[in-house]
């Protein structure tokens, strides 16, 4: 007679899987650092010149080279770079002279806030749309969902942002304009709200400043809605195809034979199975939004990581660009790891 293996055996397997995941995580992050290191080394802009200025003497340049560690062999330079990066030191911004990590930490919450809200909107709209399409294949609803999804795939986000601003802000005046708050609130926020998370919606709610919260919503809703549309396009398509696949399975017939109503067959029996691959899709779209917000942020003057990277790019501030890139890359990798762990939790076969 077979039955469930003992709990300790399960735990052991789980830990082993987690261990191998950690190793591959470390390798991937080192690889990321190697790529940014190589990019940083082939930049035609001389980092020494940027520091000492055009009129420096030979001796001054040499001293700066030594100070920056540029006289060392490349592999040593990489080890130092990786070691520093792993300890949170991503170098100094050429533009401001401040540590990159501090600026990144200041900008990241804004991006996170935007991407999180967009993902939530994308899931709320995308999952039901995908289920609707999957349960009525070939119907008008199916075609509409498919077309709306493909349109989301085909929109340049930055253009969509401009059109959205023109329509909802410029013409209709329904939403707040660029930025995270109206100018009136910007200063108040700076002085009157303690930044707990760096995310305005959370911080103002914690401080009980609902006037500010409402204003923040009016600003974030447009960029989050547009990014949410892009994410919905992806999520609804994937949900449809996963759901169609599950609905053709034999256990669905079993549930129907038991006389279960259709809503229960779809939302309980099939959905629990759809959830397994869907988690990966949602994590992927979340990660994609972290990146996709680069262009959206420039449109909406959203002071997030994307704006930070593009602004740095305009003035050739390479340490800032590469530091930002590393952080987004690491966030990407961590999200993947997280979805992997969650996947194992939802699917009993993967435990």
């Amino acid at each position, binding site marked *: 007679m077979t039955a469930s293996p003992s709990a300790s055996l399960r735990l052991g397997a789980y830990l082993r899987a987690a261990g191998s995941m950690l190793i*591959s995580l470390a*390798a*991937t992050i080192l*690889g*990321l650092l*190697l*790529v*940014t290191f190589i*990019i940083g080394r*082939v*930049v*035609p802009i001389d980092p020494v010149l940027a520091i000492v200025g055009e009129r420096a003497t030979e001796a001054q340049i040499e001293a700066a080279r030594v100070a920056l560690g540029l006289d060392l062999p490349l592999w040593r330079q990489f080890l130092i770079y990786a070691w520093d990066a792993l300890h949170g030191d991503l170098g100094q911004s050429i533009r401001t002279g401040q540590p990159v990590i501090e600026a990144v930490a200041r900008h990241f919450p804004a991006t996170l806030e935007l991407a999180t809200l967009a993902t939530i909107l994308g899931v709320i709209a995308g999952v039901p749309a995908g289920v609707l399409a*999957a349960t009525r*294949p*070939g119907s008008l609803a*199916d*075609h509409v969902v*498919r*077309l709306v999804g*493909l*349109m989301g*795939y*085909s*929109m*340049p*986000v*930055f*253009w969509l942002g*401009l*059109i959205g*601003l*023109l329509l909802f802000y*410029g013409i209709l005046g329904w939403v707040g304009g660029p930025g995270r708050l109206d100018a009136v609130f910007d200063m108040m926020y700076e002085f009157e709200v303690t930044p707990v998370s760096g995310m305005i919606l959370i911080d103002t709610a914690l401080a009980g400043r609902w006037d500010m919260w409402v204003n923040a919503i009016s600003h974030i809703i447009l960029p989050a809605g547009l990014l949410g549309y892009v994410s919905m396009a992806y999520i609804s398509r994937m949900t*449809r*195809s996963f759901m*169609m696949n599950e609905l053709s399975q034999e256990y669905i017939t079993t549930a129907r034979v038991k006389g279960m109503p259709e809503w229960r067959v779809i939302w309980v029996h099939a959905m629990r199975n759809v959830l397994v691959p869907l988690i990966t899709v949602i994590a992927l779209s979340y*990660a*994609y939004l*972290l*990146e*996709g917000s*680069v*262009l959206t942020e*420039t449109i909406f003057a959203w002071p997030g990581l994307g704006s930070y*990277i*593009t602004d740095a*790019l*305009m003035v*050739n501030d*390479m340490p800032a*660009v*590469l530091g*930002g*890139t590393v952080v*987004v*890359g690491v966030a*990407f*990798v961590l999200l*993947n790891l997280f979805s992997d762990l969650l996947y194992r939790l939802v699917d009993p076969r993967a435990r």
Partner: protein
Amino acid sequence: MTLTDWLRDPNPTSRRQAKLGQLWLGWLRLRRNPLAMAGLVIILLLLVLAAFAPWLATQDPITQNLQNRLMPPGTAGHWLGTDDFGRDIWSRIVFGARITLYIIALVAVTAPLIGMLVGTVAGYFGGWVDQVLMRITDIFLAFPRLILALALVAVLGPGIGNAVLAIALTAWPPYARVARAETLTVRHSDYIAAVRLQGAGAGRIIWGHIVPMCLPSVIIRVTLDMAGVILIAAGLGFLGLGAQPPLPEWGLMISAGRKYLFEQWWVATMPGLAIFIVSLGFNLLGDGLRDVLDPRSSGK
């Protein structure tokens, strides 16, 4: 016997007839999908636009005409309006089709080639070669594509050529995955063994026998990927990292129109519509193609 009868023959007499018959069936199925056909029409229009640009454009796309600045759509001779230098937007979009096609074509050739090279070599040799190459692929996959492209262009310097290079360098990993998977399925087949026994070297086997096997699945992916390539190229152009002024690149045109968004909306809107329609065309066609090739996903 007519040609269609020959194609439809349920008992083909040759391998080629069977293959062409399959293609014909696929085409029939694709033709019944109105969305896919719409996509095909859009792409054909893009080709026509690019090929006959000098005849379809009403004005020179580069020459400035400051008296005609920012004319709204519908003005005589400028049915899509003019931009801030008085250039006809329609003519610029028509010539911009050439740039878009140029970028697509270059990426469509280079990225799959890099990917197939990495994937087939990894799949064919296996062992540590496979481990190392796939690890590298994973690292590139871990990078957010647009940001990596940004960083690369920042290093290489702005320009169309560098933008294409950056996009190709970020677009190859999925092809490597596909090619590796295909290679693994044929690696141990008897006919590969037969070729090896005839004394063919690894390079010859990969190029002559494995790469052709990978081509079909890679080509499908290319169609599906093109919309993404168009969007990234436009994004780079928008940030000023792709094509440089005064070239009529669509993303660049949007960024030029940004300043006038609220008063002269058409300057930014028109090129954006062009990007949207073209990438929708590729998506519609790619989606239809996938349905034809994988009937399970079509929802019949």
